[in-house]
């Protein structure tokens, strides 16, 4: 098994750090070498954020580079397009179809590209685009988009469902666990 690469991309404040933490917990519990790399501080304030998760028998670099991501899990459609270059030739994009306007779009300096999901697919990339916000709200909070997406990703990975729930239990505060389990279940359904 070679090193596998998963990128989690989104907008600062969408909860990508929790998603990467839960993913890291899962991979560790599977006995794999894992590196999770993220950036805090300035770029977190509503900016484009990216977390790299790498796992395998022995992982060297903490980051994923252009053309290397087996999976890109995107919390927002424009961010999926932004990081498209990082996708490996046969990689898969799992993306929320939610739209969050960046400041240049808000100020009118730039336009939000139309038909993003179709354009992503026409680049030749495999794309699983779906609305993660509605199931998150059904689970109890729009903030649970991160765990809905993790549930969706879990369909493509080889790990047992129980192991994912175990990882959630480790990473999520006890009072939110039921909501997050439900968000995961809806994402995986």
């Amino acid at each position, binding site marked *: 098994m070679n090193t596998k690469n998963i990128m989690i991309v989104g*907008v*600062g*404040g969408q909860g990508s750090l929790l998603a990467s933490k839960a993913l*890291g917990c899962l991979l*560790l519990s599977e006995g794999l*070498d*894992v*590196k*999770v*790399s*993220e*950036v*805090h*501080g*300035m*770029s*977190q*304030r*509503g*900016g*484009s954020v990216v977390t790299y998760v790498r796992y395998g028998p022995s*992982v*060297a*670099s*903490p*980051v994923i*580079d*252009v*053309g*290397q991501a087996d999976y890109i899990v995107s919390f927002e459609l*424009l*961010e999926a*397009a*932004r990081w*498209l*270059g*990082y*996708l*490996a*030739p046969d990689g898969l994009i799992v993306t929320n179809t939610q739209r*969050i*306007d*960046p*400041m*240049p*779009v*808000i*100020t*009118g*300096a*730039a*336009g*939000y*590209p139309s038909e993003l999901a179709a*354009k992503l697919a026409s*680049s*030749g*990339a495999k794309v699983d685009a779906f609305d993660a*916000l509605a199931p998150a709200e059904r689970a109890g909070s*729009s903030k649970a988009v991160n765990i809905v997406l993790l549930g969706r990703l879990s369909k493509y990975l080889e790990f047992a469902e129980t192991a994912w729930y175990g990882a959630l239990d480790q990473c999520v505060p006890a009072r939110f666990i039921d909501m997050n389990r439900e968000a995961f279940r809806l994402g995986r359904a």
Partner: protein
Amino acid sequence: MASSYPGTPSTEITESLAEYDGIYAEWAPNEKVALETAFGASFAGRRAFCGMKHVGLNVAADPLFTISYTGVNAGLVIAVADDPGMHSSQNEQDSRHYAVAAKLPMLEPADSSECLEFAKYAYELSERFDTPVMLRMCTRIAHSRSVVETGERAEPPVSEYVKRAEKYVMMPGNARLRHPEVERRMAELGRLADDTFLNRIETGDRRLGIITSGTAYQYAREVFGGDASILKLGLVNPLPGKLILDFAASVERLAVIEELDPVIENHCKRLGLRVEGKSIFPAVGEFSQNLVASVLGRPAPSGRTFGEPIPARPPVMCAGCPHRGVFFTLARAKVAVIGDIGCYTLGASPPLHAMDSTVCMGASVSGLHGWSRALGRDGERRAVAVIGDSTFMHSGVTGLINMAYNGSGSTVIILDNSITGMTGHQQNPTTGYNIKGEPAGKIDLETLCRSVGIRRVSVVDPYDLAQCERTLREELDSEEPSVIISRRPCALLKYVKPKPPLVVGRDKCKKCKACMKLGCPAVSMRDEGASVDPTLCVGCGVCVQLCKFDAIERVDGSAEA
């Protein structure tokens, strides 16, 4: 014990230490105080720690250079985290120069596991060689998580305090005797560098030899595996001599892979080696596996392109950020804004553009005084300094003292959001809580400003634009030095309960875009008119005050803020 000031990407070290029983950890007001405190603890006989970001080391440089002379009693380790690529920093300085200049040993781990191993060994080195030891990290080490085998905690004995003025009182006569000790120590550490486990050779293909350290080592390993021989340096000051010469002799081509400055490379050149480094690698920004591969002639994958421009997504002040009202007021008043370091540096971004300079912690207040002295009364009337509560405690208050003492009629705005925001919500001397969230001493900003001689101190609510504008005008018109405290807690604090999101009355919105001038991420202009994103809006009501048509409403239908 541990004393630090928060700074990305070093903050979490001290936050984690505070979670351990039996370790005393605290936030100090700045890095100089933190390092002096840590030194005091070491001097008294307890192992001590101080952590900071690279620019924090500039603040702590004064004690750093002299505690190199005094040495330690119990072990003292100083962690410093560089930020190549400037993810959250104002410059890209390379902290290794400090270790060289202050003549201190510096260790550089390459993953989480080495962080633990090296930190532990750093204390041994500190006590064995009677020296503070530096631990250098970068963003990709500090903010990556990897597998660690934890060990059993060992309780080091307290070193008894013995008065030794000749070692610790650094007046010239004593310091002259200590400097040769420092040189002797570094020579001894130089010999250790040749055969310490911190430095190791991973023998592979001998046609290419790579000397590297830290995260750059991981990129080299990723690209080459066994297809090159690698000398991985864990002790980056002092650098080994014989080890490098022997390694160089064993390979055909020699390259140094190091982010930022050519510290290892220059050392190799002084050893007389022919080596490639910054002639092929950049001195700016972060490296990556693809960069290392392409520079050294290995294949690097390319990726798909999207085929049309993708709008940038720069960081912005959050929806409901209390700083926004102040920056809107400043932008409207068209005054020069001498800025500082914190979330509020984002006031520089469009559409507000309300910042004219940002240099370093505290530079707003002192910089404004210089501006005022240079331009006189006219200048005083058209500029302000903005500085956060934590940054003001860090080094703004000394500038304010200068302003009061040397008497410029400048206006300083303290953005008091009751937390150290940018680094992720750390307590500070103005919040009334310590690092564990327990009640602690609370510095009263109004009293502090008045006590240094500022008579005009006012407090405004940044959600109240009319009050902000009126107060700003009054203080700019006053010839006396003044402080405006803009007070409202950070909208992301857990105890700050958001109000229901605002809604736009469809038929009322005339698409005049007045609300767009705030640069609030929750407000956007769609074909049908202004739109408020209910997942982002916290109901602060600042936009309501800009709408001439009362189109932005609370869910109960009122247009009141």
